[in-house]
């Protein structure tokens, strides 16, 4: 669409943007969390007398103080206590919370809370947990008859948090009959969704109400859980989310909010809870995964079956992992024609930090094995890895999963775009080597090279439930209200662009408010790459509703019917003769005339707009009016009879119309990489990264490219560096010096960012989502490229220098 500068840039670079961590309330107190020093143990005693007597301490809260407060949360399985009850299930689990006048006093007193444990065996990995008779959760939390994702609760007899399956045809038989069967097993590490702003929450409980300011990605989901826990009506719970300093899925659903709310309830004061990086790593991480893929091919290298096993290490509490597992299953087999399929998934409880949503939502875990398997298959079949994919890719309109939206993307074209960019880089390099003679070749000695492509398709967009409100003011400018959260992705900019285009006003005339459940309308979630697509549709609908309301007001003022008013060029025109009652611009009722220009036609010209995007008025008769019509501002002032008032439009998205079929869109991941490997040190350098943003229509191309580069870089982190390392019961690297996230100098030497705009999405102007897509295939692509360079296929990420070095050793044997 258009380049529009980020609306949040100025306030962010000048330090004026307000984040949750900046929030203060009068009479606010501070909490320090006492965390478990055992991975798995019964709590036998908590001695808090010394802490309670410490300076500045208001109260020390443990589970036993919480009384009849709904003590557990977890939107799928309510297995998560606010504060550990009877036992702890991971090192770092909150056991007590100290509330004091200052953060220092709280922190000092927290060290005076003495906890006695009766140790249980620590089951810190999925294999051990699944094989063990020791139960991490001894009870089942779902009520009888309650079901989630079609799976009924069972009595807790093992350490399985969730199981699911997807199958069609007869995979076993087809594999037995296949000409070639290729098997791949990979381990995806435990990773942390590092964000510059760590989790924090400020809560103010008062009789009959609860106000929370937090880093929640999904404020409405948090409101629902808090309302249930505190037995309050939804309207009495206010969740405010200012800017979030990075989310990446890690801030979806409820995290610290119940802890802050319970502390406020107990202390009778507003209470703030914050985390450092260590505490954040012990709050949520991504599911680790062991995935095995077996693919059967016929003699023409066409897939006849895939059989996939996914085992998640889900940590101590289920959080969102059951849904992540289900999505991982859907995303594991790739956008290929697969006549026979069986995917089985199990999420195991372990005594580690709880896992939940993370950018890509199960796709990167599964695609690592699935896409690496395609490369291994190409080798076995003796054909090019691009060709194997080309032969098996689905075409636009094909079914990926029965009953779901057909494929809304052209993957062969995306693949071609990647290959031509990779080829271009190789050609440029050859030319450079030629030009510089031997010198360059010498630099290359001791270096191995490899390249690979990888593709994914994710059923994204989540539930299409969204509401937007546009309030047009008396000068024609607009305030847009949505509960979608801005966490750096630029959604406020993109949504303002859509509103500006629909209403034919310049983007400067659109203000977007922060999400606040008291004032902004319902939004399902901010995740699954949905905002521009799903919320964008709601904004379009709200603008159409606004135009209808303006038409009704114009008609009312002119004494005609709404059908006599049409919208064209950002103005309202009459099709009936209204010359006796109203004239065009610059005239009309009292106090209106001189305002005729403000933001009306001139603004529409500045936008080069003129056409309406979509809208209900399209059904109205064609304009016959020869005059220049009225601006919306004129209509508003005329109707109120003053330079005052506003007109509101509301737009709703639900499972209907463009979003009747789920998912709202398939999010495509399409990348290529070229890597070099230092033979002596095992260091991997990403020489070239190609991303294809298959977004249908880029509402803001720079924002899409930013998402693609950011997502791909996060994927490089998983591929090369990031891993939460448990040594025994606790993390050995709970800090950013040793938990290595990508740095600027780790970014690829060359980046080619392609946008594929084929208008094939269900969103505004044919848009589909971006945000996760470019992460999903990156770990697989890097693994395959390193495998090609070294001559041994990796089985485990991240590919740190020592790991690559050991692959090099294997290659020599």
């Amino acid at each position, binding site marked *: 669409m258009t380049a529009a500068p980020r609306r949040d840039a100025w306030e962010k670079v000048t330090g004026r943007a307000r984040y949750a961590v900046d929030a203060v309330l009068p009479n606010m107190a501070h909490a*320090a*969390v006492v965390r478990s020093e055992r991975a798995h143990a019964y709590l036998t005693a908590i001695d808090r007398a010394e802490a309670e007597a410490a300076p500045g301490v208001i109260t020390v809260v443990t589970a036993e103080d919480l009384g009849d407060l709904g003590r557990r949360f977890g939107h799928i399985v309510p297995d998560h206590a606010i504060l550990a009850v009877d036992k702890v299930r991971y090192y770092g689990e909150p056991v007590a919370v100290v509330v004091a006048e200052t*953060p*220092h006093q*709280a*922190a*000092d007193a*927290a060290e005076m809370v003495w906890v006695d444990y009766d140790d249980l065996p620590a089951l810190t990995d999925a294999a051990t947990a699944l094989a063990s008779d020791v139960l991490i959760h001894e009870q089942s939390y779902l009520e009888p008859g309650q079901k989630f994702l079609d799976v009924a609760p069972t009595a807790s007899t093992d350490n399985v948090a969730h199981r699911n399956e997807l199958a069609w045809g007869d995979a076993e038989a087809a594999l037995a009959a296949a000409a070639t069967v290729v098997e791949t097993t990979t381990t995806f590490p435990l990773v942390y969704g590092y964000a510059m702003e760590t989790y924090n929450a400020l809560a103010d409980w008062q009789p009959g109400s609860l106000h929370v300011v937090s880093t929640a990605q999904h404020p409405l989901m948090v409101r629902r859980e808090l309302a249930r826990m505190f037995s309050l009506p939804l309207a009495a719970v206010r969740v405010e989310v200012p800017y979030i300093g990075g989310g990446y899925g890690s801030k979806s659903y409820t995290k610290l909010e119940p802890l802050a709310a319970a502390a406020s309830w107990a202390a009778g004061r507003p209470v703030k809870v*914050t*985390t*450092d990086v*260590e*505490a954040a790593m012990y709050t949520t991480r991504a599911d680790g995964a062991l995935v095995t893929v077996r693919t059967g091919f016929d003699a023409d290298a066409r897939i006849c079956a895939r059989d996939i096993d996914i085992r998640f290490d889900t940590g101590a509490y289920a959080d969102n992992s059951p849904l992540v597992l289900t999505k991982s299953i859907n995303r594991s087999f790739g956008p290929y024609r697969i006549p026979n399929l069986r995917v089985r998934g199990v999420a195991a409880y372990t005594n580690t930090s709880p896992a939940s949503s993370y950018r890509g939502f199960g796709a990167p875990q599964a695609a690592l094995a699935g896409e690496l398997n395609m490369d291994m298959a190409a080798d076995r079949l003796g054909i090019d890895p691009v060709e194997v994919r080309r032969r098996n890719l689905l075409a636009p309109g094909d079914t990926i999963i029965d009953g779901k939206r057909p494929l809304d993307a052209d993957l062969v074209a995306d693949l071609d775009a990647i290959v031509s960019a990779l080829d271009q880089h190789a050609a440029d390099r050859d030319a450079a080597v030629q030009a510089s003679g031997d010198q360059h070749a010498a630099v290359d000695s001791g270096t191995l090279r490899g390249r690979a492509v990888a593709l994914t398709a994710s059923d994204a967009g989540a539930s299409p439930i969204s509401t937007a409100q546009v309030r047009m003011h008396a000068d024609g400018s607009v305030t847009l209200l949505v509960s979608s959260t801005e966490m750096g992705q630029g959604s406020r900019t993109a949504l303002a662009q859509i509103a500006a285009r629909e209403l034919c006003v310049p983007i400067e005339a659109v203000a977007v408010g922060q999400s606040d459940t008291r004032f902004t309308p319902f939004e399902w979630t901010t995740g699954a790459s949905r905002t521009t697509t799903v919320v964008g549709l709601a904004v379009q609908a709200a603008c159409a509703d606004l135009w209808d309301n303006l038409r009704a007001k114009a008609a009312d003022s002119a004494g005609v019917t709404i059908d006599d008013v049409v919208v064209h060029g950002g103005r309202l025109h009459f099709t009936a003769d209204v010359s006796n009652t109203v004239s065009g611009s610059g005239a009309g009722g009292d106090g209106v005339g001189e305002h005729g220009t403000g933001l009306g036609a001139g603004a529409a010209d500045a936008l080069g707009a003129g056409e309406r995007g979509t809208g209900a008025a399209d059904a109205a008769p064609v304009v016959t009016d020869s005059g220049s019509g009225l601006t919306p501002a004129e209509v508003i002032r005329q109707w109120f009879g003053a330079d005052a008032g506003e007109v509101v439009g509301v737009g709703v998205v639900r499972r209907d119309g463009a979003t009747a079929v789920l998912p709202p869109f398939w999010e495509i991941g399409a990348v290529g990489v070229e890597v070099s490997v230092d033979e*002596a*040190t*095992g*260091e991997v350098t990403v020489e070239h990264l190609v991303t294809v943003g298959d977004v249908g229509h880029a509402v803001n191309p720079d924002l899409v490219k930013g998402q693609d580069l950011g997502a791909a870089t996060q994927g490089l982190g998983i591929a090369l560096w990031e891993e939460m*390392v448990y040594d025994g019961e606790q993390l*050995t*690297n709970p*800090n950013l*010096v*040793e938990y*290595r996230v990508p740095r600027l100098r780790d970014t690829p030497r060359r980046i080619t960012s392609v946008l594929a705009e084929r208008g094939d999405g269900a969103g505004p102007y044919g848009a589909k989502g971006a945000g996760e897509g470019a992460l999903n295939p990156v770990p697989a692509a890097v693994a395959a490229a390193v495998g090609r360079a070294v001559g041994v296929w990796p089985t485990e990420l991240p590919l*740190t*220098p*020592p790991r690559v*070095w*050991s692959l090099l050793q294997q290659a020599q044997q």
Partner: protein
Amino acid sequence: MAVLPELGLVRSSDLDEVLAAVGHDYAPYAGGTELVPATGLGLRRPAAIVDLKRVEALKGIEVDAGAGSVTIGAAVTHRRLSDHPGVREHLPTLAAAASRVGNARVRSTGTVGGNLCFAEPRSDLGCVLLALGATAEVRSARGARTLGIDELILGAFETSLEPDEILATVTVPFEPPGMSYWKLQSYERPTLGVALVVTEDRWEITVGAATERPTRIVLAAGDTAGLAAFVDGLEFSDDMTGPPDYKRSVLRAHLDQTLGATQ
């Protein structure tokens, strides 16, 4: 939560006052890049910290052309060290190593003294200064003494400083011809550092970062057996940056590549 406990602060520009204050519970500090996180994590629990940054005597860089050495104050930051013309001229390898320490924040606040006295093994400066034959002047209210770098750094996070002593200056002889420093740095801190001084008849090799403390050997040029024995005898650490076999292999490959030409 890593909230810093409340700490006393002693600040003076007078060296004697500073020396009078430093003691068991009174930790000297300069940039705080190590001390602050260590205190936040409860690994160090000083009652007060004594600021060294205001003492002029600890902040100088003096080139002594006559003696052929540079004297560097303990409170000199990596950034100042790497930017100083005299250091760049006479100690170019040290200047280059300082310019590649950690990240920009660590370079602009972290100091030479803090680096040596914290004795974190994964350091560049210890290795380069040992290779250069630097000496450390240590002071306390009781007096002063001079130590070699290998007498100052005894092991991982272990120095020979008494609680009331500070490192005041480091005196470094001008860099000899044939010196180089190479490091592998996959993480924030180096995995392996190798300082070499190669002349026609001598190989001086100092290995740092991968061992508990920097280790130096002097061999006759071409003594490949001696070199192999040295590498085999090193006790490499086993940490996130890699297992001992890996570090040994990387070291061997580097020495093969750099000393191979001399054979």
